[in-house]
C-alpha cells in the first residue's frame, strides 16, 4: 500500500531532514537546495514524499492527499480553529521548532480589558498570518467588534498605527521586545508535530515510519534552551493620530523586490536609510519631509491602502487585480506603472494533461466526474478565471508558495506567475493560457482627493518616480 508524506520547506527543513536521516528513511532529495518537490524513499519502496509550504501541510493531510505530515502545531491549530472536525490526528510531538503565538500590541500599557472596552465603541483591528486563530481568539476574548486583516507576513509591522493587535509567532519571548511589541495574550505554545490523516491512521500500516520517527527524534540534538531573558523593548517612534494628519504614508515591499526598489528610489533622487534592513527594521527613514515609510508584504498592500492605512504603496499589478476581484468597489487604483519586475500570470497544467488551450480545458473538465481543482496563491484571480471560463464544478485550493508541487496529484490547474517559464518546464508542466502581464506599480486610494494638501504631496512623489521610470 502506497504511503505519502508531506514534508515542510522553510524553517523546519534542516531539522526535519536530520530527523529523517537518523530515522533511516533514505529520503536523499530532501535538503535545503532541493530543486524538485517530489521525493522517493530508498528505504521504504512504497513511501513517497512531497515538499510543501508548512502551512499547506495540515490541509493536505486533512483532505487525504497525504497520509502523514510534519509541520508546526500552530498551523494544525489554525486549520482546526475554523474546521474543528478536520480529519487530522496529532500523532507525536517531535519536540523541535518550538515557539509561541502571542496577541501583541504596540502600546506599552495595552491590556485585554481596555481592548474589550474599545471594541464596544469601535472596531479592534487584528493583523495576522493566522486569520482563523485570530478570529477565534477575538471571539473567545469577547471582543464585540473586530476586523481581522489576514496578512502574508510581517504582522508585527502593523501595530499600533495600522492594527490594534497582531497575532504573531515567536520562537522566544525576547523577539517580541526586539520588535517593539507588548504581549497581551498568550494564545498557543507549539512545536513540530507528526500528523496523520484520520482515515489513513485507521486503515494503513504506518507503524514502521511512525516508530522510526519517534525513536529518531529522541536522538536528535536538543534545541537550545528556550531563552526567556527579558531584555529591553525596542524603542519605536509610533505615529500618533495627530502626527498622521497630513502625513503621507508609503508602503515599500520586503523580500526580493527591495533591491530594484532601492535603485528606483535612488534614480528619483529619494534617499532612504536602512532599507533593506539587516535588523528587520520595518520603518526606515526616507529623505522626504512629511513622508513615513513602512515595509510590508506586497501581497498585503492593496487591502491596507483600501483601509486608508497607507496613501501610496508599491506592489505588483497581480496583487492589485487579486484584491479588486475580491472587492470590486474598493477605492484602490493604479497610479503609475513602474515597468519593472515583469511577470506573466499564467494557467498551468501537467504535461500529461491532453489540453493545449482553454477550450480544450473546458472540454476536459466537462468529462470529469470529480470537481476540478485549481491551486493558486491568487485565490480571487483563480476563482474569477474559473468562473469566467465556465469550469462547472471546480474548487480553488489556496496555497502559500511552491504551488508547482501541487500538480498533477493534488491539483489539476495552477494559476501562477512566471518570469521565464523555466521553473514551470522544470517541473514537467506546461502553460495553456496567459491571463495578463504584471509589473510593479504604485497604488493609491481614490479617497485621497478629499485632502487636497495630501493629494498634492502624493502626486509630487508619484511624478518624481515617473520621471525616474521614464528616464531609465
Amino acid at each position, binding site marked *: 500500500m502506497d504511503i505519502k508524506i508531506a514534508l515542510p520547506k522553510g524553517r523546519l527543513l534542516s531539522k526535519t531532514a536530520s530527523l529523517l536521516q537518523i530515522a533511516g528513511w533514505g529520503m536523499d532529495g530532501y535538503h535545503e537546495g532541493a530543486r524538485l518537490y517530489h521525493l522517493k524513499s530508498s528505504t521504504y519502496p512504497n513511501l513517497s514524499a512531497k515538499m510543501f509550504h508548512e502551512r499547506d501541510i495540515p490541509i493536505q493531510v486533512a483532505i487525504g492527499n497525504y497520509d502523514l505530515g510534519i509541520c508546526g502545531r500552530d498551523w494544525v491549530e489554525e486549520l482546526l480553529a475554523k474546521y*474543528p*472536525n478536520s480529519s487530522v490526528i496529532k500523532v507525536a510531538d517531535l519536540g523541535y521548532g518550538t515557539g509561541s503565538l502571542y496577541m501583541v500590541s504596540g502600546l506599552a500599557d495595552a491590556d485585554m480589558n481596555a481592548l474589550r472596552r474599545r471594541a*464596544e465603541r469601535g*472596531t479592534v*483591528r487584528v493583523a495576522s498570518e493566522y486569520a482563523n486563530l485570530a478570529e*477565534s481568539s477575538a*471571539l*473567545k476574548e*469577547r*471582543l*464585540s*467588534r*473586530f*476586523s*481581522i*486583516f489576514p496578512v502574508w507576513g510581517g504582522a508585527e509591522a502593523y501595530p499600533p498605527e495600522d492594527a490594534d493587535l497582531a497575532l504573531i509567532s515567536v520562537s522566544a519571548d525576547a523577539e517580541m521586545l526586539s520588535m517593539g511589541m507588548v504581549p497581551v495574550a498568550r494564545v498557543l505554545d507549539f512545536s513540530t508535530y507528526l500528523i496523520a490523516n484520520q482515515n489513513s491512521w485507521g486503515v494503513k500500516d504506518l507503524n514502521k515510519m511512525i516508530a522510526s520517527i519517534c525513536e529518531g527524534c529522541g536522538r536528535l540534538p536538543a534545541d537550545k534552551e528556550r531563552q526567556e531573558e527579558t531584555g529591553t523593548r525596542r524603542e519605536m517612534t509610533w505615529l500618533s493620530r495627530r502626527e498622521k494628519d497630513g502625513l503621507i504614508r508609503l508602503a515599500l515591499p520586503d523580500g526580493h523586490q527591495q533591491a530594484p526598489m532601492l535603485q528606483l528610489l535612488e534614480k528619483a533622487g529619494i534617499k532612504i536609510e536602512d532599507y533593506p534592513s539587516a535588523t528587520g527594521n520595518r520603518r526606515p527613514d526616507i529623505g522626504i519631509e512629511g513622508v513615513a515609510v513602512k515595509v510590508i508584504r506586497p501581497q498585503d498592500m492593496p*487591502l491596507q491602502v*483600501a*483601509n486608508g492605512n497607507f496613501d501610496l504603496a508599491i506592489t505588483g499589478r497581480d496583487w492589485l487585480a487579486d*484584491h479588486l476581484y*475580491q*472587492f*470590486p*468597489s*474598493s477605492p484602490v487604483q493604479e497610479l503609475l506603472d513602474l515597468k519593472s519586475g515583469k511577470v506573466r500570470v499564467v494557467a498551468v497544467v501537467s504535461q500529461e494533461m491532453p489540453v493545449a488551450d482553454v477550450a480544450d480545458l473546458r472540454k476536459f473538465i466537462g468529462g*470529469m*466526474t470529480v470537481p476540478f481543482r485549481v491551486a493558486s496563491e491568487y485565490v480571487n484571480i483563480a476563482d474569477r478565471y474559473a468562473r469566467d471560463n465556465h469550469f*462547472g*464544478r471546480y474548487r480553488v485550493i489556496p496555497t502559500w508558495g511552491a504551488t508547482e508541487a501541487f500538480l498533477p496529484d493534488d491539483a489539476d490547474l495552477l494559476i501562477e506567475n512566471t518570469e521565464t517559464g523555466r521553473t514551470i518546464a522544470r517541473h514537467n508542466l506546461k502553460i495553456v493560457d496567459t491571463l495578463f502581464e504584471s509589473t510593479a506599480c504604485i497604488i493609491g486610494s481614490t479617497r485621497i482627493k478629499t485632502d487636497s494638501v495630501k493629494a498634492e504631496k502624493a502626486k509630487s512623489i508619484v511624478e518624481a518616480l515617473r520621471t525616474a521610470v521614464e528616464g531609465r
Partner: protein
Amino acid sequence: MRVQKCKGTRDLSPDEMARFRIIEEVFRERCLRWGYQEVRTPTIEYLHLFTSAGTLTPSMLGKVYSFLDWDGWSGERVVLRPDGTIPVARLYIDAMAGKGLARLFYVTNTFIFEETGKKTRERWQCGTELIGVNTPASDAELIVLALEILNKLKLKNVTLRLSHAGLIKALLERLDLSPEEQERVFDRILDGDARALVGMRIDKAELDSILLPLLNLKGHSSGFLKNLRAISARSLPEFEPYLNNFIDVVSILENLGIKYQIDIASGAGFEYYTGIIFQLYSGREKIGGGGRYDNLIPAMGGGDVPASGFALYIDRLMNLVEPEIWKKPVPPSVLVRSEADAEMKEAFDAASLLRDAGYTVAFDLGSGEPTDTRWLLEIRGKKPKYVLRDKFEPRAIEAETINEVMAVIEEKSGHQDSPAERAPS
C-alpha cells in the same frame, strides 16, 4: 455529474409546504389576534451584532456562517442570520426606539453550521418578541400565546418546562468560580449540557444542602419555589428577587390552570436570557422555547428597554402536525380542455371567469395523465360552445355560457360557494 443539493440543506415538497404553511397561518392568525405586528429582518447582518457578551454563546458563534462581503475590505464580517431575536431587537432600536411597548412577530430562517450535514443548517422558526415591558403578566402572556398556537395545531402531549436565568446565574456566583468559569458553565447549561454542573467542587455546607437540591429537584407547583425561598431566605438572600419573580409568573400560570414542570438546570437557550426561561416539548421533542432578555437591548445601545419572546421550531412542528390539520383537498376542481389551439383564448377566458368565481381551474396540457378532478370542461369552436363532463355521470352537459356551466356545477355539488369534490347525494 448529477446535480445535488448542498449538504445540510433540505427541499420542501408540496406536502411539506402544506404543513409549513398551515403552521405559519395558525401562528400568524393567532399573533394578529393577540395584537402582535409582523416584521421581517434581512438575511444578512453584521457579525458584531451577535458577538457582544450576552448575545450568542461562543459555541454558537463558532458555527455561524460569516464571510466578507464584496465591499468588506475593512475586514468587517457579515453573517447569515444565526438567530431570530437579536435582529428584531436591532430593528426595534433602529426604527421603533422610544415608542414604548411593541408586540412583534416574525417567520424567518436561521443559519447555523452543523458538521455532520445530517441535520439541516437552515432552520425555520416563528417567533414573537414583547418589547418594553417586564411584568410577570407579560411573561405569562407569551407562554399562554405559545400554548394556544400549539393547541390550535392540535399537537399532542405538549409540556412546558420552566427555569430562570437569573437564578442560574446567582447559583453559579455561589460556586466559587472565576468569572470566566461562571460564564463557561452558564454557556454550557444554555447549550443544553445538563451535566455542566456535575463534578463541580462544592465546599460550603449551605451549597451542599441547598444549591444541589435546587439544581436537581424538579417540581410541579409554586409551592416548590416557595419552599425553596423559605430555606434560602437566610443563607442565600440574593436568590430572593429571582425566586419572587419566578413565583409571580408561576402563580399566574397556575391561576390559568396551565400545567408546567420546573427544572432549573435545563436552561437550554441563549446567553441573553436574564429571567424566566421556558421550553416547550411535544413528547420528547423540543418544539420551541423562549424567555426574558432584559439586558439585550441595553447592551446593544438601545437604552433601558426590557423584553421577552419565544420561538417555535417549524421544522420540528412539520413532522408532528396531523394530516387532518394540513391535508386540505386541493386538486383542481375543473380541468379545462380546448380541442384546438384556435380555442386557446376562449379556454383562458373561461378559466379566468371560473377562477374569479372561486373555482380551482387547471388546463389539460395534453399529457394524458389521469386526474382526480371531478369536472372536465371542453371548449369547442362551434356549438355547443361548452361541454361539461361529470366524473360521476356518463351523460355530458352542453352549455353556451360560463354562467350556465357554473349553475350546473353548483347545483350538482349541492354547495353554493365552493365546488366541492364530493359525490352527488
